[in-house]
């Protein structure tokens, strides 16, 4: 049981951290660019929300299986298949939660408006420096929202894990699927205990994040 919890936490934390980093350039581009086809890209990035998780999981399975074009590229590195592995699950989770990172971060950047970056430019900051010292701090609410959403979304992830996980202990066995198994095999007592633990833990994490955000808003930097 502890294994399962640890795998779930590891997955949620890593997915959150990686997505915060990887979604940011895309969110920045969407917030700042003015090309007409930008919303097409935005819609593509939001697709994982619309697809049923099992459908998404199915296509991910095809992508991670040995016969997929992506695996062809990785074969020289000695990787045959990413299905049923923790890294594969990590990739799947990141795709699944991508919109929950891109959207809030984009909103954070858009809420800032153009002025802070203009001010930074008139104060000699290069665009890269301005991004890190002005844009990111100004949009920190967006980052926090993204972190909360991605973490919670990954902990609750079920359909995708079901499809590409394979239930390998210590690797791809997560709480949501374990709960499902317990209910399916009529072990209700254990299921109740696991669900309660999950709820309490998630509640504490979310509450902590919200309180941190509130404090960040009130404290003068």
């Amino acid at each position: 049981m502890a294994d399962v919890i640890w795998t779930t936490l590891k997955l949620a934390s890593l997915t959150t951290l990686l997505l915060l980093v990887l979604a940011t350039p895309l969110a920045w581009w969407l917030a700042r660019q003015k090309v007409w086809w930008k919303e097409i890209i935005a819609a593509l990035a939001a697709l994982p929300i619309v697809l049923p998780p099992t459908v998404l999981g199915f296509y991910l399975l095809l992508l991670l299986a040995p016969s997929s074009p992506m695996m062809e590229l990785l074969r020289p590195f000695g990787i045959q298949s990413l299905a049923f592995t923790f890294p594969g699950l990590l990739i799947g989770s990141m795709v699944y939660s991508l919109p929950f990172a891109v959207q809030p971060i984009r909103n954070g950047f858009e809420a800032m408006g153009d002025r802070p970056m203009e001010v930074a430019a008139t104060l000699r900051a290069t665009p890269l420096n301005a991004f890190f010292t002005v844009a990111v701090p100004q949009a920190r609410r967006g980052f926090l929202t993204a972190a909360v959403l991605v973490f919670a979304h990954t902990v609750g992830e079920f359909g995708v894990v079901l499809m590409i996980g394979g239930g390998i202990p210590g690797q791809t066995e997560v709480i949501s699927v374990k709960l499902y198994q317990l209910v399916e095999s009529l072990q209700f007592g254990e299921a109740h205990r696991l669900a309660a633990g999950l709820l309490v833990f998630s509640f504490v994490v979310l509450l902590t994040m919200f309180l941190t955000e509130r404090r960040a808003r009130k404290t003068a930097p």
Partner: protein
Amino acid sequence: MSGVTNQGGVQAEFDGLLGRFRLKVSLTIPPKGITALVGPSGAGKTSLLRAIAGLTRLPGRVLMDGAVWQEGRRFVPVHKRALGMVFQESSLLNHLSVKDNLLFGYRRSTEPKTMGLDEIVPLLGLEPLIGRSTDNLSGGERQRVALGRALLSQPRLLLMDEPLSSLDAESRAEILPFLEALHRTLSIPVLYVSHDAEEVARLADHVVTLNAGQIVGTLQRATPDPLSPLSADQIRDLARQALEAGIKPNPAAR
């Protein structure tokens, strides 16, 4: 006040469209003194200011003190131009303290540091504000911080976009003496956009009137002399120009 004096001033020419609005100007800003840019709202004053700064890109030419900021296809990005800008809404960076706002440009500028906190803080009366956050500052205080911040970035040109127009009468009255003091000590050119005749009368050495994207009049002194305000004749000329251009001068002006 010690400082490097500029020889050349600013030459700026633009001819371009911003939406449906056409800006066509050829402007020289003398190397010393405050040049006021006046005109009715919608005349293009802010657009011209932003074009000189490089924040808005218009076809044209900008020479600063002999150095090219924009010419033909060459365009020096804003962060490489030694300019300081004060916006109408102060636009302080609210994730930083007052002190960090002030030092933002100072820390990044590669120009020789001729102006430091020690000079700017007393000049603008910022002592009580150092150590505070940007929350709860009055409008006048915010603009003084914005001004100090711009000056500390070691600019060779200061651009001010109606810095007092979003302040109430009391704040405006409070801050004008600081601007006058600054006027006496600054040795870099200042381009000051305003639609208020009193500000212009108290601060300007030179005046450029803009209407519908074109310059309709200029008023220049041979040598700027902040200690002797514009004469009554000059004020009258200014008022006439302004009326012809459609702005109403402040009846309380000298």
